[in-house]
C-alpha cells in the first residue's frame, strides 16, 4: 500500500495555466478569453455577439472578477472582438491596462460610434453610450507590431495577423511560458494586407481560431473571378446587386477588387457602384495613414498615389440619397444584415428575381445573412411581415479567416505542445480537432488539442524550474558540491538573481541603506557607575577616548554611549540585533538613573569590579544551599579555580573557570550540577558579544 503524501501531488497551483473562454468557446462571436498563470490574469479580446443584442450578447464576464485582471489585449477592431470594450472599461471594476495596435484604436473609435448609432434604432438596452466610448479611449494604450511591452512581469508583443488592418496576434510570455493568441488571422496575402506572420519563437500554447473548421478556401484568383462574374451577371440581367459587408475590413478589399474590375471593363462604367458607409469614409484617413501595417505592394503604390481613392465607386450617405433606378451595385453594412441599410435594401429588393445578393463574409448563426444561405421561401422582415425571397443568393467567402490548410500549416510551423481552439461553431471545431489529431497521430511530438466550451477551463501544467543566476562577488568561484551560498535573492518579473549585498546596487535598481539611530535620555549619575553596570551586562565594554572632556563607552561593539552634561546619548547602526543591544543598554541606563538602590555601591567596587569573584561567592552560596555546609571539604584543598565537595560519599570537583563538574561514580549528579552552574553563570556574568 502506497502512502498518500501531500508533497507528492503531481502538480501544484503555481504551475497551473488556465485558459477559459468567456465567449467564443465552441461558438463564433463575443471573443473573450481568460488566461491565468502565476497569479496573473490576462483577458484576450472583449467582443459582443453580433446575433444577440444587449447584455445577453456580452461574454460571461461574471465568471471572473474584473478587478483582478491585469491586462486586456484586443486583437482587432471587429465588434466580436472589441465591441464589449467600452462596457468593460466603463461599467465594470476592471483596473488593468488595455492594449491594441494604433490602427485598431483609430478604427475602433469610429466603428463603435457607428455601432451605437445603428443599434440605437433597433434596441433599447444600450450597453454603453457615445460618452462611454470617448472615455474609454483615454484608457486604451497602443502597441506597435513587434514592440515588446512588459506589464507586471507579463511580457507581450504582437505579430501581423492579416485579417483586417491593424489585426494582431499576441504572444504572451509569463515566467518563460509563451502563449500565442491568434485572434482572427489569415495566412493569405490579399490586395492590401499581408499574410499572418509565423512567429520566430515557438509558443507553448497556441490559442487559434477555428472559424472555418475543415473547410478549404478556393484560391484567391478563382474567388475573385467568381465574385466579379457574379456581380456582372446580376447587373447585366438588369438587377441590383447587394453586397452586405462589415463597414471596415473586408469591404476595403472588395472595393479594391471592384474598382480594379470596373477600370478594366469600360462597358460597365455606366453602372454605378455605391458604397453606403459614412463610417468607411471616415476611416479612409486611417487606411491612408497606417499603411505600415499593409503589404509591401500597397506601400510601394502609396508612395505614388493612393489606391484607396476609388475612381468608380461613389459614397452613398443613406437611403434618402439613393436614386434607385436601374441596375447598380451597392455595398452596405452591416455585413450580416441584422438591421440598418443592408437590411433595408435587402427587404426592398428581395422580391425581384433579377436582383442578387452576394454574401461575402462569414455569417454568424441567427443572423439574416446566415438564414438566407439555406434558401428559404420566405423571410421575416424587420417589421415582422413575411416576404417572399426571390433574388439570387450567392455566397463567396472573402472573409480573411484561416481555412483548414492555413490553420494546419500554421500549427505545423510552430508545433506547440498544446492547441486551444476557439472562435468556431461546435461542429466545425470538432471536425478540426479530429483532423488535427489525425495529423499528429503518429507524430513523435504529439500535440494536444483542446476545444473548451464557454466558461470551461483548459488546465495545463507547466512545471517551471526556478532558475536563479548567481552574479557578482558570489560567483567569483565556481560552485562545488556542498558549498554554502548566502546572499540576497532578488525576484523580478519571474527572474531570480542571487547577489551579495554589496553587489546589489551594481546589478539591480535597489540600493542598500544604512540607518543610524541616536537616542538621548537624561542621566544624572556618573558614567563610571554606568560602566560598572554595563560590565555586568556585556563583556565588551570599551572606553572611548573622546575630545573636549566628554566620556564615552562602546558596548557590544555596536552601541556608543556618550555622556554630555545631564544627557546620555546612545548611538548605533540600526539592525534587529543592534536594536536589541541598545534596548538592553537603555534598560541599564534607566535603572542606574532612577533606582536609588543601584547607586549605593561601594566606590572601590565600581573602581575595580571583579565579576569572577562575585560568581565564585554566589556559587558557593548556591552549593551551600544545595548540599549543606558540611559538604564543603577542607577549603584548603580548593584552589582559586577549584571547588571540591563531598556529597553522599561521592567526590565532586568543580572547575569554576571552565565550569566542568566531575563526579566519580554518579554521572547524573555531575550533569545536574553542571546545568545549575551554567544557569547561575549566565545570570551573573555579562553577555558575550557574538
Amino acid at each position, binding site marked *: 500500500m502506497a502512502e498518500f503524501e501531500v508533497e507528492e501531488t503531481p502538480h501544484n497551483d503555481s504551475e497551473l495555466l488556465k485558459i477559459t473562454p468567456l465567449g467564443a468557446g465552441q461558438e463564433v462571436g463575443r471573443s473573450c478569453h481568460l488566461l491565468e498563470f502565476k497569479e496573473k490574469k490576462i483577458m484576450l479580446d472583449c467582443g459582443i455577439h453580433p446575433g444577440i443584442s444587449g447584455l445577453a450578447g456580452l461574454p460571461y464576464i461574471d465568471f471572473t472578477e474584473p478587478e483582478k485582471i491585469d491586462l486586456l489585449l484586443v486583437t482587432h477592431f471587429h465588434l466580436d472582438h472589441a465591441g464589449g470594450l467600452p462596457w468593460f472599461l466603463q461599467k465594470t471594476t476592471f483596473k488593468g491596462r488595455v492594449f491594441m495596435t*494604433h490602427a485598431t484604436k*483609430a478604427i475602433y*473609435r469610429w466603428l463603435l460610434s457607428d455601432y451605437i448609432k445603428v443599434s440605437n434604432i433597433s434596441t433599447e438596452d444600450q450597453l454603453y453610450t457615445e460618452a462611454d466610448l470617448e472615455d474609454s*479611449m483615454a484608457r486604451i494604450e*497602443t502597441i*506597435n507590431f*513587434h*514592440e515588446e511591452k512588459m*506589464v507586471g512581469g507579463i511580457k507581450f*508583443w504582437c505579430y501581423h495577423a492579416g485579417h483586417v488592418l491593424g489585426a494582431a496576434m499576441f504572444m504572451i510570455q509569463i515566467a518563460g511560458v509563451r502563449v500565442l493568441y491568434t485572434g482572427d488571422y489569415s495566412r493569405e496575402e490579399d490586395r492590401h494586407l499581408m499574410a499572418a506572420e509565423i512567429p*520566430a519563437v515557438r509558443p507553448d500554447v497556441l490559442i487559434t481560431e477555428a472559424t472555418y473548421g475543415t473547410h478549404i478556401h478556393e484560391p484567391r484568383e478563382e474567388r475573385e473571378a467568381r465574385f466579379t462574374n457574379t456581380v456582372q451577371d446580376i447587373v447585366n440581367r438588369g438587377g441590383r446587386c447587394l453586397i452586405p459587408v462589415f463597414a471596415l475590413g473586408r469591404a476595403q478589399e472588395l472595393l479594391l477588387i471592384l474598382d480594379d474590375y470596373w477600370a478594366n471593363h469600360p462597358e460597365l462604367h455606366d453602372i454605378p457602384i455605391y458604397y453606403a458607409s459614412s463610417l468607411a469614409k*471616415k476611416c479612409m*484617413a*486611417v487606411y*491612408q*495613414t*497606417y499603411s505600415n501595417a499593409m503589404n509591401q505592394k500597397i506601400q510601394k503604390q*502609396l*508612395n*505614388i498615389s493612393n489606391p484607396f481613392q476609388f475612381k468608380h465607386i461613389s459614397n452613398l450617405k443613406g437611403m434618402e440619397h439613393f436614386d434607385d433606378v436601374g441596375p447598380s451595385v451597392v455595398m452596405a453594412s452591416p455585413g450580416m444584415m441584422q438591421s440598418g441599410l443592408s437590411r433595408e435594401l435587402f427587404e426592398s429588393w428581395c422580391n425581384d428575381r433579377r436582383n442578387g445578393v452576394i454574401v461575402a463574409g462569414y455569417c454568424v448563426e441567427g443572423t439574416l445573412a446566415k438564414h438566407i444561405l439555406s434558401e428559404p421561401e420566405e423571410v421575416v422582415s424587420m417589421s415582422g411581415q413575411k416576404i417572399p425571397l426571390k433574388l439570387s443568393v450567392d455566397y463567396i467567402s472573402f472573409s480573411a479567416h484561416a481555412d483548414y490548410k492555413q490553420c494546419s500549416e500554421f500549427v505545423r510551423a510552430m508545433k506547440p505542445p498544446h492547441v486551444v481552439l476557439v472562435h468556431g461553431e461546435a461542429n466545425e471545431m470538432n471536425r478540426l480537432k479530429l483532423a488535427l489529431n489525425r495529423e499528429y497521430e503518429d507524430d513523435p511530438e504529439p500535440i494536444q488539442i483542446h476545444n473548451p466550451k464557454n466558461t470551461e477551463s483548459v488546465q495545463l501544467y507547466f512545471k517551471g524550474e*526556478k*532558475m*536563479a*543566476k*548567481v*552574479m*557578482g*562577488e*558570489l*560567483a567569483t568561484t*565556481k*560552485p*562545488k*558540491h*556542498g*558549498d*554554502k*551560498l*548566502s*546572499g*540576497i*535573492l532578488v525576484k*523580478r518579473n519571474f527572474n531570480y538573481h542571487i547577489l551579495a549585498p554589496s553587489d546589489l*546596487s*551594481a*546589478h*539591480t*535598481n535597489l*540600493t*542598500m*541603506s*544604512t*540607518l*543610524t*539611530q*541616536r537616542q*538621548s535620555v537624561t542621566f544624572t549619575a556618573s558614567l563610571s557607575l554606568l560602566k560598572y553596570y554595563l560590565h555586568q551586562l556585556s563583556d565588551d565594554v570599551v572606553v572611548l577616548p573622546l575630545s573636549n572632556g566628554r566620556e564615552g563607552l562602546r558596548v557590544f561593539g555596536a552601541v556608543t554611549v556618550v555622556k554630555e552634561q545631564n544627557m546620555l546619548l546612545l548611538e548605533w547602526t540600526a*539592525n*534587529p540585533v543592534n536594536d536589541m543591544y541598545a534596548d538592553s543598554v537603555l534598560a541599564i541606563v534607566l535603572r542606574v538613573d532612577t533606582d536609588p538602590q543601584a547607586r549605593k555601591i561601594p566606590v572601590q567596587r565600581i573602581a575595580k569590579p571583579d565579576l569572577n569573584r562575585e560568581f565564585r561567592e554566589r556559587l558557593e552560596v548556591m552549593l551551600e544551599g544545595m548540599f549543606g555546609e558540611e559538604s564543603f571539604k577542607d577549603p584548603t584543598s580548593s584552589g582559586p579555580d577549584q571547588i571540591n565537595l563531598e556529597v553522599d560519599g561521592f567526590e565532586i570537583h568543580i572547575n569554576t573557570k571552565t565550569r566542568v563538574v566531575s563526579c566519580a561514580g554518579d554521572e547524573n549528579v555531575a550533569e545536574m550540577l553542571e546545568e545549575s552552574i551554567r544557569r547561575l553563570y549566565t545570570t551573573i556574568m555579562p553577555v558575550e558579544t*557574538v
Partner: protein
Amino acid sequence: MTSIIKFTPLAGALNEGPNCYLLQVDEFTFLLDCGWSEDFDMDVINNVMKHISQVDAMLLTFPDIQHIGALPYLAGKIGLNCAIYATVPVYKMGQMFLYDLYQSHHNIEDFDKFTLDDVDSAFDKITQVKHNQTITLKDKGLGLSITPVHAGHMIGGTAWKIIKDDEEGEIVYAVDFNHKRERHLNGCSLFESSGETWSGKPPQLMITDGYNAMYQQARRKLRDEQLLTRIIETMRGDGNVLIAVDTAGRVLELAILLDQLWRDTRSGLCAYSLAMINNVTYNVVEFAKFMVEWMSDKIINSFTDQRNNPFHFKHLKLCHNLGDLAQVPQPKCVLASTADMECGFARQLFIRWAADPRNTVIITSRSTKGTLSRTLVDDPTVSRLKLEMKKRVPIIGEELDQYERNRAAKKATEVKVFEEESSDESDAEEPVNTIQNRHDFIVPNEVPKKSGSFFKQLKKTFPMYPFIEPRIKWDEYGEIINPDDFRMSNIIQVDEEVKAEIIKTKMEVDKTDSNPLQSVVEEAPTKCVTETVFIEMKCTISFIDFEGRSDGESMLKIIQQIKPREVIVVRADTKTTKYYAEAIRKALTSSGVEVFTPAVNEVVDTTKERHIYQVKLKDSLVGTLRFSNARDSEICWIDAKVDCSENVNDSSKVLTDSQIREAKEIADKEEFTMDHDGEDIIASQKSSNAINTQVANIIPSLEPLSIEDTPGHQTCFINELRLSDFKQVLTKEGYQAEFIGGVLVCNNMLAIRRNQQGHIDLEGTLTEEYYAIRDLLYQQYAVV
C-alpha cells in the same frame, strides 16, 4: 567566462565629427552609425575601410547625414555587406536626407561621392524595425540581442541597447537624445522609471555624446516666442525669412510649429506666405503622414479622435526648386535645407538674400565647426563673408558646339569599343563620361578670372544666379492662378530646372533605368562653375536652437538616473569631453563609474571577467523563502547548500531560452574546436549530444541548509528612502512632520536626516513616539 567589449571610435571622438564607432562584443562587431561630414572628409571613409571587413551588423540611430552619411559610399564604392538595422522612419527619412544631399550637390557641382543608386542599394540592406522590438542575433551573434528604444530628436530616432545573454548589464548607445516632449515627438524613453523598457539593472556600458555637455538652451516657450517675433518683425518690414533646417528630421517639428502659427488667427501671419523647400519636400511630408504612430501621444490621439493629421498643412507650400519658390508671393518665410548651409537651397537663398537688410536668416542648429551655419552662429555680426559659390549653368555658344562635337566623337568610339556590350551599360556610363570631359575644357575657357585665388582683389560682387522677378498678374478676381502650382508634383514636368523630379521618377520607375536623368542631362548640357563671392552681410542673422537635443544639465541628470557602470564619451571637442567626463565621475561617485574619453582610433577595452553562473532552486528551498517587496522586485535572504549531484531524469522540465542558448553556445564552441581537428561529421553529432547533456549537467541546484548550519548575516535595509515620501507617511499616520533646514522634524522631538551618501539618521529623545516612528521608518525598507 570573459566578455569582450572593445570600443573604437572611427570618427567623432574628442571632436565634433560625424558619428561612427566600432563596438566589439565577444565575437560580434557592430558599427554604430556611419556618418559623414559636410565636406565629405575621406579620412572617415579610409578609417572605416580598415575595419569594414570585420563588421557584422550596423546600427543606425538617426536619419541625418551626421549619422548615416557614409552609408551610400560604403555600399556603392566599397561593397559593404552586413546586416543594417534601423527603425522604419530612419529608413524612409534617411533616404530622403541622402537624396536631398545628392541632389543639392548635383544641382551645383559634379558630385562623385555616391549616386542615387548607391543610396538605394544601401537601403535595400536595411532591416526595418520598431522601437522596443527585440531582435535576437543569429550565428556569430548568438546570445546577443538588440533593442531600439525611442530617443527623441528626430522621427524614429533610436538609442540602441545591446543585451548579452539576457543577463550581464546591457550596453547602451545613446547619442543626441532628447528627453523633452516636443510637438511631433515624445521625449526619449531611456530612463523610464516605470522600468518598462529598462530591465531594472544599470547598464554595463553607456556610449553617449558630450556635444551639449556645456550648453544650455533657453526654454522651449522662449525659443518659440523668439522665432515668432523674428518672423513677424521681418515680415512686417517686408523682408523674407530664411530658416535653415535639415531635410527630413527637425524640419518636421518646425513645419508643424510654423503651420500652427500661421493657422492661429491672432498671430497675424496668414497674410504672408510660408514655404518649405528642398529636393524631396513632397515625399518628406507624405512619409511623415504615414508615420503618425511614431509621433507624440498628442498627435496620435488627435489623429485617432479627430482624424487630424498634422502634416496636412494648411499654409505651408511645398517647393522643389527656386522656380516653385518664386511663385510664392513675397514676403515669405522659407524652411530650406540644409541646416549647415553648406549646400542646398538654404545656401542659394542665403547668398541671394543676405545682402538685403530687410531679410532675416534664422539658423536652427549649430552644425559642426567650419560650416557656414556655424560660422554665422559663432560670429553673427560679421559684415562681409567670403563664400565659394558653385553652380551649374547650361553650356552655350562655342562651348556647346565643342561639347557636341566631342560627344559625337566619343559616341563613335564607344560604339566601336562597346559593340558587343549591352546597350544599357554604355548608356549608363555616358553621362558620367561627358561630365568629366566637359570639365576638362571648361575651366580654362569661361571662368579663368573667377576661379583662382589669385584674384582676391576683385571686390565687386558677381551676378549670382539667373533670377527672374515674378510679376504677379491680377484681374478682378485676384491673382491669376498658375495651374502648375496646383498640379500634383509627381507628374513629370519638362522643366529644365526641376531636378527634384528626377528623384521622384526614379522612385516610381523603381530603378528600372536611369533614362530620365540622362534625358535631362542630354537635353541641356550643363557645366559646373565655382566662383568666390563676397557677400555684404546686411540681413539679420539669428540663431534659435531647434536642434531638439537634451541640454548639458539634463544629460547629466539622465546619466545619473541610468547609473551606468562605465561610460564612454564621444563627439565633443576635447575640452567639453573632459569636462563632461569629470562631471559624470562626480555625479556617480557612489557607484564608482568608469569614464573613458577615447580619441579617434583609440581602442577602449572594457573586457571583464564575467562572474555569473546558474543554479536551480529546489522546491524545498523555495518553500522556505519569505519575500519582502522592494520597488518592483521581491527580495529575501537566502542561505543554501550547493548540490551538484545530477538528477537528470527530470522530464517535465521547462527549459528557459537562455539555457538552451547557453547550451547551444557551448555546443557551437565544441563544434568549432572540432572543426579544427577536421572531424566535421562527428562534431555536429556531438554538439547535439552536448545540448542534451550540458543542459542537464552544468546546473547545480540549491537546497536549504539546516538551522544549525545557517550562518548569521548582517541585516540589510534595502530601498532608498526619500524624506519627502516619509513625511507623507508620517502625516498619514497622524504625526506632525515638517522640514526644518533639510531635516525632517516629527512632533518636535525626533529629527530624521539624510546625508550625502544616502545614510539616514534618526535622532530623538526616549519617548513612545520614538519607537512608533522607528517602526514606520523600518516599514519603508525591505529588511533582509
